[in-house]
């Protein structure tokens, strides 16, 4: 089960959806909005996506995980829009017969999601500056006065 949402993520329902009598292990990963990054304070994150491609890539992740491990069920939800401190940005649940494969599949899924799924976050720092997070690209902070536009 793959989805994008602008609402709060119901990770409890997500986890229930992957449980099964055929599995001895369930792993749930939650990505949450952390306050401090590299000594700077975040007040909020804005998540944007190319939604059609994000859904397609998330589905490919599920398909590939099923090829690599004896996965019973995978459920991934990514939230978009404005997230406050502590909010859940992504929830990923996976169930397998045994725990080793469950940890391997779960870690591969989230590591690969962060490289291939077209979702981006914009930092809203506590000094009013904003900054798109683009790994490998030199940071381009927009100071409060030079903010190039609202993120929608």
């Amino acid at each position, binding site marked *: 089960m793959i989805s994008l949402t602008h609402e709060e993520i119901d990770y409890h329902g997500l986890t229930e959806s992957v449980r099964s009598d055929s599995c001895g292990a369930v792993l749930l990963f939650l990505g949450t909005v952390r306050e401090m990054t590299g000594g700077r304070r975040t007040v909020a994150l804005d998540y944007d996506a*190319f939604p059609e491609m994000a859904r397609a890539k998330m589905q490919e992740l599920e398909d590939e995980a099923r090829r690599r491990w004896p996965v019973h069920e995978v459920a991934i939800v*990514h939230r978009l829009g404005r997230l406050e401190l502590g909010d859940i940005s992504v929830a990923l649940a996976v169930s397998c017969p045994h725990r080793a494969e469950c940890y391997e599949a779960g870690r591969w899924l989230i590591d690969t*999601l*962060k490289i*291939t799924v*077209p979702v*981006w976050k*914009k930092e809203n720092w506590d000094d009013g500056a904003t900054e798109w997070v*683009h790994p490998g690209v030199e940071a381009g902070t927009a100071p409060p006065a030079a903010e*190039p536009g609202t993120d929608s």
Partner: protein
Amino acid sequence: MKLPVRLYARARDLAGADTVQIELEEGATIAMLRSALMEQCPQLQPVGSSLLFAVGTDYAAETQPLNAESQVTCFPPVSGG
């Protein structure tokens, strides 16, 4: 042919537009599109070499040829999760 290229994240902010129209010859590749895009939108320079391209919902290689129906999207490295 004139191809609309959708932009996301910092690329959209730098270009100041959701979509830019790029003039290309039929059969032009992603690499040629990248050059044309940088020429038309020099303000993309800070993210230029890192920009990724997709056709439809798949990542596109530099050598992939384009046609008038190609749905092209362009964005800097992803940071979800």
